[in-house]
């Protein structure tokens, strides 16, 4: 099967400034994935079967995750283990998640915490297409954390890996260290630069990591490395991450791996689990259903 990244509709990885020293581009990862993930998912997509019992029409997958979340939040913080699952059979490649995340975190032009990659295979009249959302993997052994000279990247007890903007000095070692090209550097650009007027939404308050901020030159998050936080400011407020909330294909799942009753645990046992580039040894928490 031939595989190539289809330009049409693809969130261009080039625009996500992978950093000069990146040894492995996102394209390479796609290639390594495609041998496994695409082949499986592509074929599976053409033969719909019972993946898991829930048909959200009646039960409401989002409602169930909200209940899971509420239960998890009642536990001591240290006993939770957050994880995200993405069902590649259900992802329709619409990028609602990508834009919801941009809006939630007011990321600058070219910076997507959660791009969606598009791969094409097969040949006419039986082509195949696969969409792969790519949030942070929130690794158990994060390469970014180890690489940071300022120890600005931290991993919480619940598994969330984040950049402490107060410590980050913009060295960008994480940008090159991450095998998934996740951390990106914020150069301080605005979407409405070079237009008749910078628009107020650019500087509207954000609450990343529970801190109310508004973009201004030099102040965090400008000149910092940035990445997906699983929206833990939303989790703390009892809300699912922005991407999960707005996933219109019902393809993104989130919950506490330490809760045996949760949907995320059910999915983790589905036999369809695959992790991205496990050979990198970083032990990703985010997993895919193929």
């Amino acid at each position, binding site marked *: 099967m031939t595989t190539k990244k289809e330009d049409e509709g693809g969130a261009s990885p080039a625009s996500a400034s992978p950093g000069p020293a990146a040894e492995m581009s996102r394209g390479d990862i796609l290639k390594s994935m495609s041998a496994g993930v695409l082949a499986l998912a592509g074929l599976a997509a053409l033969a719909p079967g019972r993946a898991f019992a829930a048909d959200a029409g009646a039960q409401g997958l989002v409602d169930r995750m909200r209940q899971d979340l509420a239960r998890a939040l009642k536990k001591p913080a240290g006993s939770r283990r957050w994880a995200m699952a993405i069902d590649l059979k259900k992802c329709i490649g619409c990028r609602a998640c990508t834009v919801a995340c941009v809006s939630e975190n007011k990321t600058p032009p070219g910076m997507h915490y959660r791009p969606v990659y598009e791969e094409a295979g097969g040949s006419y009249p039986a082509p195949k297409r696969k969409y792969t959302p790519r949030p942070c993997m929130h690794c158990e052994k994060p390469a970014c954390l180890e690489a940071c000279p300022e120890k600005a990247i931290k991993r919480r007890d619940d598994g969330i890996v984040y950049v402490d903007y107060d410590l980050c000095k913009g060295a960008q070692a994480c940008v090159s260290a991450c095998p998934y090209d996740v951390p990106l550097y914020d150069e301080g650009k605005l979407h409405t630069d070079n237009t008749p007027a910078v628009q107020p*939404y650019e500087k509207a308050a954000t*609450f990343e990591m529970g801190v109310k901020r508004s973009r201004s030159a030099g102040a965090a998050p400008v000149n910092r490395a940035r990445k997906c936080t699983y929206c833990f400011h*939303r989790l703390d407020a009892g809300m699912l991450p922005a991407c999960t909330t707005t996933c219109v294909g019902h393809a993104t799942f989130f919950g506490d791996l330490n809760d045996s009753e949760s949907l995320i645990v059910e999915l983790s046992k589905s036999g369809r689990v695959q992790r991205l580039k496990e050979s990198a040894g970083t032990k990703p928490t985010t997993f895919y259903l193929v």
Partner: protein
Amino acid sequence: MANDKPILDPKLKLTRRCLLKSSAFLGGSALLSSMLGRSQALAEAGSLSAQDRYELADIRNQIQTVCMQCNTGCGIKAKIIDGVLAKIEGNPYSPWTKSPHLPYATPLADIATIDGAICPKGQAGLQHAYDPYRIVKVLKRAGRRGEGKWVSIDFHKAIKEIVKGGKLFKNVPGEESREVTGLKDLYAVKDPGVAKDLAAAAKKVVKKEMTPAEFRHKFSDHLDSLIDPDKPDLGPKNNQFAFVWGRLKAGRGELIRRFTSDAFGSVNAHGHTTVCQGSLYFTGKAMSEQYQYDEKDKKVKWTGGQKFFWEVDDLNAEFVLYAGVSPMEGNYLSYRAPRIMDGVASGRLKFAVVDPRFSSLASKAWKWLPNKPGTEGAFALGITRWIMDNKRYDAKALANANKAAAAADKESTWTNACWLIKLDKEGHPGEFLRASEIGTAKETRKAKDGTEYEFDRLVVMQGGKPAAFDPYDEKNAVEGDLIVDGEVNGIKVKSSLKLLQESAGEKTVAEWAEVAGVSAADLEEVAREFTSHGKKAVADIHRGVSQHTNGYYNCHAMFTLNLLVGNFDWKGGLIKASTYDIMGEKAKGPFDLKKFHPLKANPFGVDIIRANSKYEDSSLFTGYPAKRPWFPLASDIYQEIVPSLGDAYPYPVKAMILYMGTPVYSLPAGHTNAKIMADVEKLPLLVTSDITIGETSVYADYIFPDLTYLERWEFHGSHPTIAQKVQPVRQPAIAPLVETIKLKGQEMPICLESMILALALELDLAGFGMDGFKDGMSFYHPDEYYLRMVANLAFGEKEDGSAAVPDASGEEMRIFLDARRHLPKSVFDARRWEKIVGEKLWPKVVYVLNRGGRFQDMEKSYDGDMVANKYASLANMYCEKTGATKNSMTGKKFHGIASYVPPALDCLGKPLPDDGFPLQLITYRSAYHTKSRTVSNYWLLDLQDENGFLLNPDDASRFGFKDGDRAKVVSASNPEGVWDLGLAGKKPMIGRVIVTEGIRPGVTGFSLGWGHWAYGANDVEVDGRTIKGDPRRGKGVHANAAIRVDPHLGNVCLSDLIGASAVFYDTRVRLEKV
């Protein structure tokens, strides 16, 4: 030029204020610490919870309203911080964004942390409002049309100029002495009584019951008021004013009609239906026509057809044939995608996709069937042939001739499959056989209005013997033989199903498959699957089926498949939209707004697009072909508006207002419109209501800035795939970013409403201003109209008030007020609002507004195995009205039964001579752009640099292209491959070649929304200053100008002459290397 104030800097004041606020917060300035509010104070006290810290989760920062990034109308939750819309999410009360949606009774405070899901366009919607290229003042043309030179002008001065006319553009070279006719001179017939008499006499003149001389004599005082006294059926000069719109929803729709038709008295109020899916709507209309008493004509006829269509209940269907529909990229994404994907994941749903392009939907399908564009009818008839041959139709349902028979089978709908149709000498079907023709007397009945009329029953065959019946009889069940080919009283007859069998029998399954360009095995497999799921199998269609010259026939053939399996009104079957009344008609109050009009005009005459009009019944009839096509079975024929006035057929138009429409950009061959609009002789006065200087506003004489969907009122209505009865309410969520004006002492933003109100007051039209609604009830502010619509919605559809919503609780009332603290009094003033609806209804109005509309609960939307909101009527297999109507260009009758007619014919029915153009051009939508209005959304532009031309690898190698090459698209009607924009120059249609396995060989396609040359993409001059355009907005290609111009008419795209679709997909093109 002396105006120093910046014009294009939208909302200058607000921006500055916001920036101050933000910078103050970051700098920790003591000056503004008082504005930080509750959360900051609590944080300092160390008692702030996570939810308090996350201010977007504070219900007092949230307003439920309705998206309009496309026409889906998803409920949204606007989250506002410090007066700025910071984030948009889904409204969880709305069935559009959450599945299942929250019960309507859920207390408002409970939804603070519950958001629904919306698509990327919806997420980016705040960039539609906060667009640096929005206009905030009225602009007047300062150069020639299209030259891009403007001056700002006082709102009231502009209104006066438009009403009075005169040498309005004497400073523009070439127009020094041009006298513009103002609206006051077109407001010719003012007395509704006179209009009524003129209309009645005009009818007599056409019928030759009155001579033109007699007419002239009788109305000698009024001849000056008519467009042509010798052709009085063209109507009064009032008709030379047209109000035309693009995207329009209820509320604003009622206001425009109130102004144009009820007050000004013009018949020319036209929408854009046909550019979207005209033939789909008018197939729905034909199939829903009923054989009943018509109050206007006082007799029984085929009448009451609804301009609507059906769609699948995605939530419960088991098998769907999706044809020419793209619910994962085009409209409906937010709610159809989860229903479809959950259905696939659980194993409930299996589906096939008929589409020449491998859409996102197709990538998830059981079977992708890349057909030849325009052959969807052949595909459907191939399935029909298989179903007929194998007797896989629902014979039990189809045998029901009337309501009682249907009810006996627990069906809510029935068809005319077994009814008998008379054949002419050549064997062509005509009208249904009437009972009086077989010796059964007509019945005399009495209508509700007291009129006595005759009811002639219809006839079926029962075991070879004719039987008369009433289709609506609820007591006497009548069934009929299905396949009938015989004679009754010497009259040759066939049943509808027999006609269908013959139509489908014109070719074998294999031959139909070949026409459609699919394999016969695939077609048969789909047919078998389609007939293996009972009522839960559906053929679901949209633009790809309807936007062809044979669009109506394609749609009818596809919908006929649904008749064959009898899936109408069934859970998981084919369903229709249901909305709550906002006009107070059903409950006759509390505000019966249609009656709130002191003196309604009586507009009359043929309209400029010949909608719902028969050529044969007009004074313009001179044999075939007509000068331009007439559309007796359709309305809102968008593509005909500007070309018709360009040809002054049926008469010249002197002034036009265009609201939220951009025919130049959105119509196929829209460049033909640009050429006409640039000509001040053909269209002497053009006013647009727009938010930017868009591709069509470029040609306007005046542009009135409008509010975006985030700043205004509207009632968005529903779509057939929503099973619930609903009415989403769009309401102001942010302060208007345009200038505020005063009208009779009341402040309001410059917008569509204030423009209409000001024009009406200046013209002194009835229905506006002092006592505008009725004695003692004036109409000076838009809120006086819209809030009463909300009150009607809150009151419900029962006269006794038993269907009213509850009162908002004290807590909900407080949240309501808090959430609107950032809105200026010109927009939101609780006291003023309460006064408009009255003290009693006010808490109910608040209850509805807090929820962003009214939505039926999920559990109430199904009734056992059926939907609760039913069509519950006759659905026509044979459309007698269509079959009895003549094509105005050929004089031949249309077909009443589903038939296949090839696509790509000109208006005379001739094939297009397009040899040398080897590719067929289609358009499509990506998930992140709507046609013409998302280019300001930089978050979306950041997802994809540009679009391009899809090309199959076979074609790429055949024509020597590789992925990434650049190509120009040319066609027979645009051999140069350019947008010829007159003074605005020429824009070549050049795009990137995208080589993909996901397109049928021989077909190329581009996604819509790209390649702008206005809407902030170009430089414009305002008040002598140049505003630089943003090159990001001009990227990609918009190839509509390559789409075929009708060779006979020369200034319009191709059209379907029945369903009136503007034809997008029947053009042959060539890609040339550049």
